[in-house]
């Protein structure tokens, strides 16, 4: 059952549930904007994607998989393993897997993992653990 906002309900986030593959475009514009804004130490321009971008890409996949991160969710942990650098102006194939759903002190914690591939080579594996809201409307979860 989905919430009125189109988000999956917490009960639907069962361990092992897999979403995808989803296609995520790594365009030159995305690359140039990411590098110029968040990794200005580098001189990558629009040809080489900066490694910090995987944190933005995983959220794009989450949006494709189940709507978006719900209001009130708090990011607690993240893990990244980088593989081969992606080619720009090409798509990534991404799968999202629910790795853990735990209740601690009455609050739900959700861990999901996204594997990014391009031409069947691993580009990155990223996981995020969130303190998930019990309601999806901001202000009702605190």
């Amino acid at each position, binding site marked *: 059952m989905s919430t009125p906002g189109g988000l999956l309900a917490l009960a639907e986030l069962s361990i092992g549930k897999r979403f995808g593959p989803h296609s995520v475009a790594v365009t030159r514009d*995305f690359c140039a*904007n*990411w*590098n110029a*804004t*968040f*990794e*200005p*130490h*580098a*001189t*990558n321009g629009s040809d*080489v*994607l*900066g*490694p*910090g*971008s995987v*944190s*933005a*890409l995983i*959220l*794009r996949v989450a*949006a494709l998989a189940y709507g*978006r*991160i*719900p*209001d*009130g*969710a*708090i*990011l*607690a*942990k*993240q*893990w*990244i*393993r*980088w*593989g*081969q*650098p*992606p080619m720009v102006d090409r798509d990534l194939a991404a799968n999202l897997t629910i790795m853990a759903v735990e209740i601690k002190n009455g609050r739900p914690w959700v861990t999901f993992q996204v594997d990014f591939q391009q031409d069947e080579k691993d580009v990155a594996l990223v996981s995020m653990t969130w303190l998930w809201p019990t309601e999806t409307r*901001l*202000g009702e979860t*605190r």
Partner: protein
Amino acid sequence: MKYSLVIDNNLVLAFAELSGDFNAIHIDEAAARKTRFGQRIAHGPVPLTVVVGSVFRGRWPTGREMTVKYVAPVAIGDEVSWTPNDITPNKGEIVNSAGQVAILFEIEGALPENG
């Protein structure tokens, strides 16, 4: 050497645009005031870029791993910083302008030489 980054509104809006994460806690001042934080806060990965950017300098770190723990939120306008530690170069913490730890991180694998 100390690396610093001011988490301004432009950074937060840019991350929202690039990630598609328009969660109200990051972009809606009125809604954010109703939360326990009382104000908008940055997406966690935004302050993390002060480390990723300065350590890897745009080079894709094939084979390396990074573990991150988000300890405290970072408000819009806050300045975060981290100082590389010669004794434990693969571990570090990002602190806010009040000196509070916001993010703990550890990188597995040899760090590249900067420059």
